[in-house]
């Protein structure tokens, strides 16, 4: 299944590539657009396209207007490198970029073509599981986290986890003194190395006189989310007592 997709992508890429590079070498199979462009540079000049692959063999930059037998001049080579490194942020995508003689960059990916690409600019071609998250995705993720943290906040301050009216916030206002950044560590109360949620459970059972939560209970996840959100920015120091 995976290989089928891959070859499909390759095919699409190849077709796109073909479209872009069809008129690349020599003059005989050039399209009208290509000829017009060449005319701008200097029709008498012989030139060719040079292909530069990135190390992952998935990012390709085709440079137009290179004199045959010569290296790509330094400024253009730097642009090639910049484009390649920039495209590398789309980790698993097969992308081809074409740099024209006048440094206009066209990018082809997933069978679509994007004109006038700028290095470092957005390229909304990628699937959510790779590369940069979109603004909408980030908003969704934050809203979800805020919801869980708010639930944790509520539980942390409520008396429903225990049986005696003691709340976590009574010894830990604003989650102070919880030190989540010091876990995992040997927890003397548990006589073994513990994680934050193990200690949360211990506290629920002991000072709160309640019943322990299952380690995958959404409530304990919410409590951890709240505690960690209150301690943002603290350096990790596992094992610190």
């Amino acid at each position: 299944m995976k290989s089928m997709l891959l070859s499909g992508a390759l095919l699409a890429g190849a077709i796109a590539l073909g479209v872009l590079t069809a008129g690349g070498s020599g003059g005989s199979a050039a399209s009208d657009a290509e000829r017009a462009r060449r005319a701008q540079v200097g029709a008498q000049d012989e030139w060719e396209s040079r292909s530069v692959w990135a190390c992952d063999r998935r990012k390709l930059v085709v440079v137009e207007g290179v004199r045959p037998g010569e290296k790509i001049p330094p400024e253009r080579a730097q642009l090639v490198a910049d484009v390649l490194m920039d495209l590398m942020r789309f980790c698993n995508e097969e992308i081809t970029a074409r740099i024209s003689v006048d440094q206009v960059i066209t990018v082809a990916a997933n069978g679509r073509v994007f004109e006038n690409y700028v290095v470092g600019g957005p390229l909304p071609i990628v699937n959510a599981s790779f590369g940069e998250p979109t603004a909408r995705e980030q908003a969704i993720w934050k809203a979800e986290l805020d919801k869980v943290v708010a639930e944790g906040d509520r539980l942390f301050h409520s008396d429903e986890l225990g049986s005696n009216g003691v709340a976590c916030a009574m010894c830990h206002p604003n989650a102070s003194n919880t030190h989540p950044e010091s876990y995992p560590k040997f927890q003397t109360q548990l006589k073994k190395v513990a994680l934050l949620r193990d200690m949360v459970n211990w506290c629920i059972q002991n000072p709160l006189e309640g019943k322990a939560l299952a380690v995958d209970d959404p409530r304990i996840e919410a409590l951890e989310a709240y505690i960690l959100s209150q301690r943002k920015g603290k350096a990790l120091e596992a094992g610190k007592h």
Partner: protein
Amino acid sequence: MYRNDMTRKEIERAFAERSREDERLIQSLRNCDRRHFLRTSLKFAGMAAAANLVPFQSFQLVNVANAATSEGGAGDVAFRFAYVSDTHLYARGMTHRFARAAAKAVEDVNALDPQPDFVLFGGDLAQLGRAEELALGQQILKDLKAPVHMMVGEHDWYFDMGEKWKEMFGPDHYSFDHKGVHFVVLNSVVEKDFWTTNGYTPEQRMNIVAGLDDGRQSRFEVGEPQREWLKQDLAKVDKKTPVCVFSHSPLYKYYKPWNFWTDDAEQVQAILKPFQTVTVIHGHTHQLLTNKIGNIQFHGMLSTAWPWPYAPEGLPAYTVQMLRSDPFNQFDGCGDGRFDALSKGRVNTFYNLWTRNPVEITAQQLATNTIPGPGGYKGPSY
């Protein structure tokens, strides 16, 4: 012979040099000859006490202030009063841990010999301001042999705006004189109305105020009407008369987000400024807490219910911090205590920490900045 800056080794060396007999006793204790164990160890303790070496919070041997000085000496105590504070009772019967703890404090005070002249209740008798909680508290405190002066806390007030409290215990601010000291009891947990515009029910209002870290409530203050009353009350008091103020909030600014704070602290302190000797005794903070501002010495009381951690900032430098408490032990970091009122008007504070060694902070130490601290422990525990 012993200085505050001595290391434990230095003190032990100096102590050993004291006399040959003492040396032998120390040696025999180290070898712990079982048969003579009781005798030698008791003698050693007596020696240690006689030499003013008293274990302090079990961290290091420290020289307690010399008893012969003019202020703070043991012979200088004019009278004693005890306190029980911040019981935070739920009305769930006497087996509930908070009720047991409150009863434990009452037992401690009743076991004091000699009995204190009176007992101060430091506020937050109830947890959620309910009549049943206040009634339970009244029932527990009734067992105290000495007379009790009551002070209100925010947990007592914000369910019904103090109606039940006033009905059961009288006015929320008043004053009285005792053996030459003028005592003032304030309601220092007044909050600007945050509930009406938001449409909170009494229950919601109480729950919000009950959350130490709940920022929806206002900051504590004494407020103008009470400051006026205080001015009037103190107008009749001679400037040389020692003044002792009982307040739930600290009457200074320690940490705003947790209402370890009195908004009009400066104004209240200004009213107190003309007096030679002023002591403020406050609750709410549930920790060892000491401060000094100008002519005023501030002492925080322990809670019987649970300890608060030290705030991330604002801790007065004079405070000897208690180490963070053990959550397994419901009494750790909690307790009760007493104050020894000295003839010059200051107080020595005696913290009776349950499960830990007691801590005494004398007025002399506070006045001369010589409060001994626990060895090596600096800064908040979190």
